[in-house]
């Protein structure tokens, strides 16, 4: 390695989605030098794809009057099935309104309250008051007592990311896009940056920093069917796990969104149901009121997804060449509403299903969507056991979501966490000078260079990266899904362990030179398999049902034994994670009934 290639900065942010950019802004505003790494230009990050909205208890609309942080707090804790950290949730609900308003100040064209009377799809008449005219409008999302989700027409994530990036551009923060962090540089106690590979030419470069932040989003693509962007491969979590020092929290908590379209697995937003859409079965019967008389289609996602699969297992699914599905019906919302507030849904249906959802039903089924688990941090976003390493956003387990996240709470989390963690990063950088040893950096680069050289030499190995990857995706999809059993999880564990072994033996079919996609896929695969193994081991060990983690063989929530967070460590050279547990912090709201999702749901 040439030392002239090294890039030195105060703060290294890995990830240019909403969370990463918000951290970067906080540090840059305080005058620190910040460098952001990203697989893609920031505005193409996955945050851009969020359609639905961002929760904050503004109480601006008729169905949200009287809302406040306390009610948002209660919804979030219930949504998490009491798995979240209540101190974090409290901080979050208090700051979410500030975050929404600051984004408005930075240019987000939030949809606004138009005063007057209107009739909701279920016949209820509401009046938006004159005194609220022009304030930020809010819609309903699942699992909430009040309408609280702020939105910008049909493209909330897009406008948030563009406004956030405009501030990054204004502040002159350096963004190195098409650059992938592939390992952290650390000595077991202190992190001092990362080794990254350029996706433009396949060369390596060390980045040295006083503080390093992982904001790399979710890992959805390790599942065979996911609503996530194709770049969501979890590499940020994987490199944290690889340190051996930093644990991943609650990796078994995987969210399935009720409405991925079939067969493309593209998401149509929860706003469809929030705005009054129905779920129908093959007899065009609206079945959710049968299971959830109060919340109906807008119970939390884990609950709705479970009832949907349950209903299909009972034989009420619509048969298709791609397996059974159900229908989402938004026709009664009317063309005008669909073509403004749900326009993206309309376009997706047109482009990927060839249907007009103003008059046609949308084929949907629950699809992998979100990772509650991630790099375990304290409430300030500092990773466990490694000074100078922070995490924020979907890549982190802060832990706002426990075993199930509420819709609209993720966009809000990315920005609120960006503010909170950004402040801590700034303080850390102020107090800690750059500190690294030459030999440590040289060794970190050497190890990664050896991996690249080995793959490019094609002198050993026999395994095909795409075949192994497909096997991993299918195993998770079939055996580590919405309904879990000890037996299926055990099988998945054996298969994934075997795949992990084989992934040490990859052989490229192409040269691996330049920006070679096969080489990059080969670099990622072992880390992805380690994440998969953390999910399976965690799920097998958690002998209860809580939030998105539902064990048919242990169908009850077990507060006595499992009011706990799983911590998965990966010891060097191991084939399985070491699991430890910590108590969940209950500060305000003791465990109780969620008010929806009565258990057990029998599997068939």
């Amino acid at each position, binding site marked *: 390695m040439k030392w002239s290639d090294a890039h030195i900065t105060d703060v290294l942010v890995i990830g240019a989605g909403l969370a990463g950019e918000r951290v970067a802004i906080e540090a840059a505003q305080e005058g620190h030098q910040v460098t952001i790494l990203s697989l*893609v*230009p*920031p*505005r*193409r990050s*996955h945050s*851009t*794809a969020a359609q639905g909205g961002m929760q904050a208890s503004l109480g601006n609309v008729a169905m949200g009057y009287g809302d406040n942080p306390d009610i948002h707090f209660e919804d979030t804790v219930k949504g998490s099935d009491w798995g979240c950290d209540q101190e974090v949730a409290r901080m979050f609900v208090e700051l979410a309104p*500030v975050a929404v*308003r*600051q984004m*408005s*100040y930075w*240019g987000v*064209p*939030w*949809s*606004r309250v*138009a005063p007057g009377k209107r009739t909701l799809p279920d016949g209820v008449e509401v009046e938006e008051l004159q005194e609220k*005219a*022009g304030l930020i*409008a809010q819609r309903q999302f699942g699992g909430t007592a009040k309408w609280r989700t702020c939105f*910008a*027409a049909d*493209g909330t994530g*897009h*406008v948030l990311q563009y406004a956030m*990036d*405009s*501030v990054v*551009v204004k502040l002159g923060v350096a*963004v190195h*896009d*098409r650059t992938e962090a592939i390992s952290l540089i650390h000595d077991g106690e202190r992190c001092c940056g990362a080794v990254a590979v350029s996706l*433009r*030419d396949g060369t390596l470069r060390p980045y040295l920093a006083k503080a390093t932040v992982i904001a790399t989003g979710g890992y959805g693509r390790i599942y065979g069917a996911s609503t996530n*962007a*194709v770049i969501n491969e979890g590499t940020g979590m994987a490199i944290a796990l690889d340190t051996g020092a930093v644990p991943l929290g609650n990796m078994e908590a995987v969210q399935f969104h009720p409405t991925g379209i079939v067969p*493309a697995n*593209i*998401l149509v937003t929860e706003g469809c149901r929030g705005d009054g859409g129905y779920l129908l079965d093959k007899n065009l019967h609206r079945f959710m009121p049968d299971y959830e008389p109060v919340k109906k289609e807008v119970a939390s996602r884990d609950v709705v997804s479970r009832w949907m699969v349950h209903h299909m297992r009972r034989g009420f699914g619509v048969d298709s*060449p791609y397996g059974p599905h159900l229908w989402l019906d938004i026709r009664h919302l009317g063309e005008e509403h669909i073509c*403004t507030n749900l326009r*993206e849904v309309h*376009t*997706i249906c047109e*482009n*990927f299903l060839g249907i007009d959802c103003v008059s046609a039903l949308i084929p949907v089924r629950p699809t992998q969507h979100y990772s509650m688990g991630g790099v375990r941090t304290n409430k300030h976003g500092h990773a466990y056991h490694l000074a100078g390493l922070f995490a924020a956003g979907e890549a982190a387990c802060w832990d706002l979501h426990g075993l199930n996240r509420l819709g609209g709470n993720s966009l809000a989390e990315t920005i609120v966490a960006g503010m909170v963690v950004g402040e801590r990063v700034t303080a850390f950088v102020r107090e800690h000078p750059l500190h690294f040893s030459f030999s440590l950096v040289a060794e970190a680069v050497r190890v990664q260079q050896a991996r690249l050289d080995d793959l490019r030499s094609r002198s050993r190995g026999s395994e095909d*990266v*795409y075949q192994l990857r497909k096997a991993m995706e299918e195993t998770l999809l079939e055996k580590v899904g919405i309904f879990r059993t000890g037996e299926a999880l055990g099988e998945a564990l054996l298969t994934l362990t075997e795949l992990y072994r084989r992934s040490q033996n990859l052989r490229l*079919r*192409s*040269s691996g*030179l*330049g*920006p*070679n*996609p*096969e080489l990059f*896929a080969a670099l990622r695969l072992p880390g992805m398999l380690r994440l998969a193994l953390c999910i399976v081991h965690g799920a097998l060990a958690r002998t209860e049902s809580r939030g998105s983690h539902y064990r048919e063989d242990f169908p009850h929530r077990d507060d006595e034994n499992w009011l706990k967070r799983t911590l998965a460590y990966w010891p060097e050279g191991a084939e399985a994670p070491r699991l430890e547990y910590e108590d969940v912090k209950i500060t305000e709201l003791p465990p109780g009934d969620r008010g929806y999702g009565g258990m057990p749901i029998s599997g068939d």
Partner: protein
Amino acid sequence: MADRLLTLEIFRYNPLTPNIPPRMQAYQLRETPGMSLFIALNQLREEQDPSLMFDFVCRAAVCGSCAMLINGRPNLACKTLTQDLPDKITLMPLPVFRLVGDLSVDTGVWFRDLSLRTESWIHTDKTFEAQGLEERMDNPTALSIYEAERCIECGCCIAACATANMRADFMGAAFLNRIARFLIDPRDERPAAQVFEVVGTDEGVFGCIGLMACDDLCPMEIPLQGQLAFVRRKMALAGLWGK
């Protein structure tokens, strides 16, 4: 239709192996129902040629990563279904932008530069009050800002633009649309003259020769022609047109 044998002719060039010159390479592929170019290209990569370079991110036509010339016309590959194309499909990288390799081009750097040149952020003397209410705005104004903000920076309008293909510094429809977005926004306090300093040049509105390919091709269906007219009108009102 569904079991057609498709021929994809794809532009190949890896800048890191310059001894292998740019070329068109043909691949054959069995069409499946509902196949998009996202599915087709990934299948080619996984089964036939793992070195094939192209960019997809959202694969849902919202992130702007996958624009390319599809039988000569710029469009998003992820939302292009093979059933709408003939048996023979030619794929080329977008012109104007720097080539990364094969079908992959560097739109990110280009668009960041556009943001810098147009100073695409809200300019205001107000400070943010964390404890106050948000500033009010009427919903139609919010929606019209949103309409311009829907641009996903895919580069189709630039690739289709005759002027942009001839002059490297011409910023094209994405640029004018961006100007319109900030002109509409009451939060941006820039005086019109300051905005028009950037627009009223040959790199800006005067460079446009009115072919309007951009308007036909925008995958987001942003009314680019309307936005151009809006910017011109605003300039006339400010007495700056042709100055």
